[in-house]
């Protein structure tokens, strides 16, 4: 049972592959169907950002454990142009490309933890975590 998967993102077709791999990995932790869909959707948005803005990069997905809590951490990294104004990029509806501008703020809403690190001219790394709810009766 692998607890880490890396998918290289270069072509648009890798978006679907990355979210399928992420769903498989998260399923090992027993996430609900709703949570798996949320995780897959977040991966899709992060991977698309790489394709649209950086050209290529990686999605690294890892099962993690902290203080007895299990979860999946997804790291999207690229060596693209970077984001000059992160605050602006985190606003709903803001986009420099031809998109709805919901990618980053939307992904933050989907996940439990969200961190972004970007340097202009060097690249961007977005790290998100979804924790597995301990309550077995937890439903969306």
């Amino acid at each position, binding site marked *: 049972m692998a607890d880490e998967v890396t998918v290289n993102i270069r072509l648009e077709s890798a978006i679907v592959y990355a*979210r399928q791999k992420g769903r498989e990995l998260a399923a090992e932790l027993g996430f609900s169907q709703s949570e798996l869909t949320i995780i897959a*959707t977040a991966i*899709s*948005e992060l991977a698309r950002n790489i394709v649209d803005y950086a050209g290529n990069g990686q999605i690294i997905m890892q099962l993690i454990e902290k203080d007895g809590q299990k979860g999946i951490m997804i790291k999207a990294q690229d060596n693209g142009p970077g984001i000059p104004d992160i605050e602006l990029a985190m606003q709903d509806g803001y986009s420099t490309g031809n998109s709805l501008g*919901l990618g980053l703020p*939307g992904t933050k809403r*989907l996940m439990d933890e969200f961190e972004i690190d970007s340097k202009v001219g060097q690249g961007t790394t977005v790290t998100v975590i979804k924790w597995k709810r301990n309550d077995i009766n937890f439903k969306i």
Partner: protein
Amino acid sequence: MKVPILKQGDYLIASVQSVLSDSDLSLLRDEIAERVGRYRSRGVIIDVTALDVIDSYAARTLKNIAQITKLRGAETVIAGIQPEVAFSMVQLGLTLDGVATALDLEEGLICLDKLTKGMINKNGG
């Protein structure tokens, strides 16, 4: 073409059978726009029951298809969005404002009948 598009009377039914990449979605959009004219269709149903994820690109493309077919004189209904997919869409901030939706294909047909009622028959019948 990854998504079969069936002609049924005045309607086109596009049944998504598997997960779709961005380019598959764009191809579906172009195919529907062309076939609405070729078959003089009055309505289109896109059955998305099999879609595992509707992210921002998919939502935007579905919206575009509805707008394009409208400009071509036909109505569109999106049918079969799964509950967990709907939940993720809401969290992400995606809506399909202005696009008709239905629970499944059966409801979609009923919806399309209502939407196209009184519409001029383009086939001259």
